[in-house]
């Protein structure tokens, strides 16, 4: 292709060629770098450890806090109730959720993240308004930290009850607790980057749905209705 060129045109075309080749190499490098960055964008689901504020981290932190209160309520019911059904249900809830908390905290430790929100802001990771317009909550004295959670006052009341009153109030609080936590699990089951986080969230949804049926049944047997 270059053979017919004369000596007259050789010098400028040599410089031009160098320029063109340099530009081409740079362009290819830039393209490669850009593609590489696209693949490794922060928050990208393919990176090994999810970033702070990601769905994976936020879900594990906030669901662990939500679960811990469920465990607390179940332990109160198991300590104070004499009803075998209630005690069995309470054991099931407490041991299952404690095991799940352990999984989530183990992952958080691997990711070098806090076990729970360090600044009292919850559910900030559920920011895709298209799915559930929940938005973040900030800790306020006297208010539940997250939907479904009991206040300090309600927990104190639960600790003071016994017999049928205890059973009914425990069921009412736990039904509300399960229902309130479901949107978090639904969100994470769809949006989390790590497959094992999505699997756990999905499992929570399924097992809690069947637990809800059991608790509603127990509540009806005791002639009571869920909290409004």
């Amino acid at each position: 292709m270059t053979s017919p060129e004369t000596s007259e045109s050789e010098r400028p075309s040599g410089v031009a060629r160098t320029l063109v080749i340099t530009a081409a190499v740079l362009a290819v490098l830039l393209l490669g770098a850009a593609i590489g960055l696209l693949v490794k964008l922060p928050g990208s689901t393919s990176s090994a450890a999810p970033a702070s504020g990601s769905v994976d981290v936020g879900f594990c932190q906030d669901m662990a806090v939500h679960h811990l209160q469920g465990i607390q309520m179940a332990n109160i019911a198991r300590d104070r109730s004499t009803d075998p059904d209630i005690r069995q249900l309470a054991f099931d809830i407490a041991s299952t959720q404690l095991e799940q908390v352990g999984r989530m905290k183990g992952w958080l430790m691997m990711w070098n993240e806090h076990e729970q929100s360090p600044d009292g802001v919850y559910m900030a990771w559920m920011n895709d308004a298209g799915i559930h317009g929940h938005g973040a909550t900030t800790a306020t004295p006297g208010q539940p930290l997250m939907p479904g959670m009991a206040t300090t006052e309600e927990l104190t009341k639960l600790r003071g009850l016994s017999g049928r009153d205890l059973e009914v109030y425990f069921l009412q609080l736990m039904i509300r607790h399960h229902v309130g936590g479901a949107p978090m699990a639904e969100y994470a089951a769809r949006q989390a980057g790590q497959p094992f986080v999505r699997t756990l969230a999905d499992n929570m949804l399924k097992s809690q749905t069947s637990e809800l049926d059991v608790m509603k049944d127990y509540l009806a047997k005791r002639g009571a209705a869920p909290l409004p």
Partner: protein
Amino acid sequence: MTSGKKTKATRNSVAAARSSVVASKPKPWGTIIAVIAVLGLAGGVFGYAFTQIQANNAKEAALAKWKPSDTNKDPSTQLAGIVIKDYKGSRHVEPTQRVAYDQTPAFGGPHDSQWADCTGVVYDKAVRTENMVHGLEHGAVWIAYNPDQVKDDALNKLKARAEGQPYTMLSPFPGLDKPISLQSWGHQLKVDNADDERIDQFISSLRRNPNTYPEVGASCENSQFLSNPAPFVAEKPGPDAVPMDGGKDDSATEGQQGQPSTPPTSGSGSTPPSS
């Protein structure tokens, strides 16, 4: 392919047959525009990603400063005014016994077998130190305040950091030498007001930091204690108080900072007290 070639008018007549075709060919604007477009796109993507990563890194760095990690095991060492002591996981004392603590409020040493419930509890009345210290051993942060100096708004700000937040407890501490004192196992920071940014930095650095408390995984629940908290004892401990070294042959003495060991005396600590 041929777009880069500068085949200008200085062509030799020898190649006339071919040049007649080439010379009449217009500048390859389409190719040039396409190349510029691709380069522009690549530049845009690169620039966007670069700024995103920069911003993200800056944010992460600011957060990471107070976040325990493999490379930053105890971020609280960067806090101005922090007091750090290396306490081992310690022996238990009876409800009737006192411990001659070496710090006020105490943040390590022998303690009651009943831990103060630390499931995000706001204690309205002052609580016995021997129980609070056991809560610290389970990874909690204890916010103590002087009830004569911290009230209303300031107290609400402290409550917002404690109430309902797992592994956190708040209680008045009569006679406290500063308005607010923060404790976690082996760590203490005293501050003058509830707006001090070091409060959140202390919590971020130390609450359930697996590198700084002895019993990783221990529970904060103790509903028995919560129903009837042991009250604060104002008198100084007498000569019969348990000394800081436990008073006995404390043979289990490994426990170094950054390498929490499981103290043999704490076996009963992980069992719910009610069972």
